[in-house]
């Protein structure tokens, strides 16, 4: 089943082209990894798919679960089953994590949550991610360490059960133990969804096995391969792809 299809996508920010013709198809159960230098356009791609208003699609199209995304607002994409794990999730002081999660899950599932059932589900997910209950009364990402932010992103993903998970450098800021725990969460979601993982490092891909690895340079995918491509990129860098 085709979850995401990107056709010859061109994207600009303030009239500066960032993405210059990308095509990718992600099917259910597939994990795609995108690797590339800083500024290659990796995060832009994830943000465009999620509908960030700062980016303008100048040509090409994105089809999600068989429907063009053009007319979908950001929240409608989320409600349709799309999830972006932010590279730098913003803090929202005054909004408690527990309250936020409940509202988010109720919105995406379009139903009033039964308190007891939701608490049970939440507890199980937090246990899986080795998160302390005190997280729930803290304010969203306020004063969180890098690792705590990424755990919260992963917790949201587990609860929202997306059909497409876009993971923008989810491994950054994580120590080895946290990486292992977060990877477990990603693997669980990846079984029943399409997954696009943006990373700089092989260490994540040791734990989250990609089906395809795409090398991105200057807004274009210049090579696609299997997991071996990630190893080669980590070993040799990106210069050889430009030669």
């Amino acid at each position, binding site marked *: 089943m085709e979850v995401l299809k990107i056709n010859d996508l061109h994207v600009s920010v303030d009239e500066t082209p960032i993405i210059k013709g990308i095509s990718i198809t992600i099917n259910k159960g597939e994990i795609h990894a995108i690797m590339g230098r800083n500024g290659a356009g990796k995060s832009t791609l994830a943000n465009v798919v999620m509908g960030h208003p700062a980016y303008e699609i100048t040509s090409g199209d994105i089809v999600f679960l068989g429907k063009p995304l053009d007319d979908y607002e950001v929240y409608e994409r989320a409600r349709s089953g799309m*999830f972006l794990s932010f590279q730098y999730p913003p803090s929202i002081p005054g*909004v408690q994590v527990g309250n936020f999660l409940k509202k*988010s899950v109720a*919105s*995406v599932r379009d139903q009033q949550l039964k308190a007891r059932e939701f608490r049970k589900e939440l507890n199980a997910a937090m246990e899986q991610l080795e998160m302390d209950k005190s997280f729930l009364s803290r*304010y969203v990402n306020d004063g969180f360490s890098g690792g705590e932010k990424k755990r919260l992103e992963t917790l949201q993903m587990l609860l929202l059960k997306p059909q497409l998970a876009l993971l923008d450098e989810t491994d950054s800021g994580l120590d080895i133990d946290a990486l292992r725990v977060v990877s477990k969460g990603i693997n669980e979601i990846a079984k029943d969804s399409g997954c696009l993982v943006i990373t700089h490092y092989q260490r994540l891909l040791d734990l989250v096995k990609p089906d395809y690895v795409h090398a991105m340079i200057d807004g274009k995918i210049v090579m696609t391969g299997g997991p071996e491509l990630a190893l080669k990129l980590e070993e040799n860098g990106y210069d050889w792809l430009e030669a």
Partner: protein
Amino acid sequence: MTYLDMEIPSRSSHLWRYTPWKRIHPSKVDIVPSCETIIINHEGDCEFKESIRTVNESDDISRVFLHECNDQMNIVEIDGKGQLVHVNLIASGESVVGHIDFQCKGEATIIIHLSGSATWTGLHITGNLEKNSSIGYAFVNELDSNSKLLRCEDWNIQRDSRLEYGELSIGGFRNKTDIRTILSDSNSSLKQAVAVYGVDSRHDDHHMEISHMVKHTDSSLIMNAACGGRSHSIGTGQLFIARNANNSNAGQVFHNLLLSQDARADAIPELEVLSDDVSAAHGAASAPIDKEQLHYLLSRGLSPEQSEALIVEGFLVNTFSSLKNKIISDDLKTRLKIHLECGIMR
């Protein structure tokens, strides 16, 4: 000096720049109306006495005016053993006035809730914290949306005493508030947190004066105002540190969240520091809703309306985060959430 002998303050005065006296007066400025007494209900362990205010010591026009409108006064004596005192003020009729004087010692929590539909409400609250007291105080203005409010508060904090002051201002259509606190003896402290929410054309003018009169005194003031519609919030802080008040710490921060093009917010912290050896800081910032916060919530499936409401709620709730008295911070947060949810349902 009586009210009618006093000069009407001009707009060039710091205190009256944004809300001229004639706009907060109940009728015409050359009239002292006869006002009913505000209805007061109270619960909790305290002595409640009715009295007459005989002497007016102030030369401030608001205080003199309120005194002349109605000289009935309620004295509340709290011999604190950690008790909670609830005071419900109900403003009904045309013009009403209330005077309450809190005499506090020990530890206690006071929650005042102002509601009602009076056209004009005048309120003067005074308080004295005796030595070695710790008082949590919350004030909630939930007047009807067609009411006008003139409120003055005067607090004196004595040696080794602490006042934690939280306020939620969500009622009335035109509000002028003037709160003055004197840290009169060493090791006295004030933590003041004020949240203002403006919708439609609500006008809320808060003036807060804090005076450090002696050494080793601490104060912090935070005011967060979220303004939607054509509402206007004003926060003026006047911090005074006397010549001998060395080793004092003081901070004032004003944050404004602008929710519409037509909303306005003014924040003016002012410092007058006469001592050299103090720590004093102030800051003010006004901004619309953070686009990244909004995008984040939208990306989690919340509609634009839900997202904005949650950001506003968080912004205002965060006002009370620094208060250690959990009873007042929980009460204020709960009332705020109920108010916002009712607003969304409307």
